[in-house]
């Protein structure tokens, strides 16, 4: 009798070979994705190197941009980037954290629940699920804000926000022109419309991360605060927010990184003026907008200089993002330890 054919067999040579090839492939692609990042940074750094040598650190502190005289400085752009991002962060941060509290405290669900209670439907099989559903819809709506492309926000800002706020801004300038932030009138694109649109764009990031941080606060802390007689908002302000502070801070830093690098909405709304002004209504410029607007028609001499500007932007955003990611990592480790 021939030996019964075994249902198992050791891998054939071909299978062994393909196994090691596939493993090698995974290994090398993993390396490749790291190399891509290194290559990107080096490519920009090398392209910027001649300009860095030629203009040195003075590039960061001078204000002229004149290709004809070979004079370049990006102080206005650095100022504009930080000014718009910080203002947007203040507005987007306040609204984003408020929305996160609203979501994590279940206000809407509670409201729908008490509405159902009036009709005695709160434990109904179908209607009883409504509060949860409505909360979900609200969460998705806020996330939808993040799905809209930035160029669409730019278009919206150009044709909706600017006409809307212009009369109010010019009235403020007329009545309170002595106050430096209202020092100029809004003739079209300017800092304020850019800041408003930018704050809307970073709001979903802040809300999503803050909500995550708020809901992962251990419930027993809340119960303890209630047990001591604290009201809901005393609990939120004195217990919940401080406990979630690290996560919220990490989210705000990541949003700051986004705001610094955001390009299209700013290129369309900020006005591209080489100005350092504290006025909210004056046009300004940012690093990303400078790249977007100048690069396509750049003089060959300008390319190197623009690469230098790109390197500065890369440096700023990398630092902000790394600090944000680091804080978030510590925050999530801390939340796990607290449970």
């Amino acid at each position, binding site marked *: 009798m021939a030996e019964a054919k075994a249902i198992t067999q050791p891998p054939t040579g071909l299978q062994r070979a393909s196994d090691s090839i*596939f493993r090698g492939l995974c290994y090398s692609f993993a390396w490749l994705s790291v190399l891509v990042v290194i290559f990107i940074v080096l490519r920009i750094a090398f392209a910027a190197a001649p300009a860095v040598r030629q203009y040195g650190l003075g590039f960061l502190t001078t204000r002229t941009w004149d290709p004809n005289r070979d004079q370049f400085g990006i102080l206005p752009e650095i100022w504009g980037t930080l000014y718009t991002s910080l203002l947007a962060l203040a507005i987007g941060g306040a609204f984003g954290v408020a929305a996160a509290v609203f979501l994590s405290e279940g206000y809407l669900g509670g409201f729908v629940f008490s509405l159902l209670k009036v009709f005695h439907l709160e434990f109904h099989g179908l209607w009883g699920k409504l509060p949860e559903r409505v909360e979900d819809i609200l969460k998705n709506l806020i996330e939808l804000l993040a799905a809209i492309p930035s160029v669409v926000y730019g278009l919206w800002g150009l044709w909706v926000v600017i006409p809307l706020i212009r009369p109010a801004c010019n009235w403020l300038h007329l009545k309170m022109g002595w106050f430096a932030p209202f020092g100029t009138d809004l003739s079209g694109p300017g800092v304020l419309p850019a800041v408003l649109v930018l704050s809307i764009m970073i709001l979903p990031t802040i809300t999503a991360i803050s909500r995550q941080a708020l809901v992962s606060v251990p419930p027993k802390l809340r119960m303890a605060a209630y047990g001591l007689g604290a009201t809901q908002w005393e609990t939120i302000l004195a217990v919940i927010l401080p406990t979630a502070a690290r996560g919220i801070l990490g989210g705000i830093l990541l949003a700051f990184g986004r705001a610094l690098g955001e390009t299209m909405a700013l290129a369309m709304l900020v006005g591209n003026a080489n100005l350092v002004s504290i006025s909210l209504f004056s046009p300004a410029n940012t690093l990303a907008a400078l790249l977007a607007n100048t690069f396509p028609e750049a003089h060959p001499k300008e390319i190197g200089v623009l690469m230098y500007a790109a390197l500065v932007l890369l440096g700023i955003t990398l630092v902000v993002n790394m600090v944000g990611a680091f804080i978030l990592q510590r925050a999530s480790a801390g939340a796990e330890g607290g449970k």
Partner: protein
Amino acid sequence: MATHDVTGGSLLTTLPGAPDLNPFAGVDFNDLEKSLRRPRTLANVLLSGLVTCMTLLALIPLFSVIWMLLWRGGRKLSLALFTQLPPAPLEQGGGFGNAILGTLIIVLLAALISVPLGILSALYMAQAPEESRLASVVRFSAKVLTGFPSILAGVFAYGAVVLAMGGYSAIAGAVAVSILMLPTIMLTAEDAIRMVPAKMKEAAVGMGATKTQTVLMVLLPTAFPGILTGIMLAVARAAGETAPLLFTALFSNYWPLSGNHLNLAQPTASLAVLIYNFSGMPFQNQVEMAWAAALVMVLMVLITNLIGQSFSRRQVQS
């Protein structure tokens, strides 16, 4: 107002010489009543009202954007938009068929670059031992790329592809966009692969499958819905990106053809750049076209997002 003071009772305090045992002594019960006249309760109600108003305010822009897209973009929507070429200044009619095609080509090319790279590195990250240095370095670089400003991807592609090829092209645009797609694909794919129940993997290994067979026949098929979600989210983001295309794919008023063949090495139109170029033009027709293009683009992005999310529901949970 009710007088609760009587509950303090006179029983305990009447005992002569006894220490004051009344636990309610010195408590003003009026003080404990919940009333809007008390600052603590009032502050509570006011703050609740404040966050409610702020959340509603934050949603106004969303509805405004959607309303404007439907109103100004929807009015203009017609079949001609999808088949014709962009109009010259002052010309009436026209469409953005070439921009839609260009966007699809660029996103497809970008996916061809980033999907294999993303999935294979994700496989490595998910399979590598916990203490693997390389895996954590890969993960770190993916996270660095997540916060990478989109315009810098364009700057990089300009330096690495446009200068090397000697001109603007769809390929350069795709390279720039693929850098932005990569982290989303890598991180979601890694999560999806990690979610595959360990017993499935162990069963495959127990049957004598090689690592490759385990990966190809068990891990990838099981994690497929999750991976697809990541790809769809990345594609949705890529379709809306403008900044990396501005000086890589540039723009073109013509179909991306030379002769009768698709030509990937010439400037290529895209919806995003079309919106940017047309939005500031002083011509009514162009501005309306920008709104219509924005509507089409947002619909494309949202539909891709929804498809992606529908896959994520089919993901096997461990």
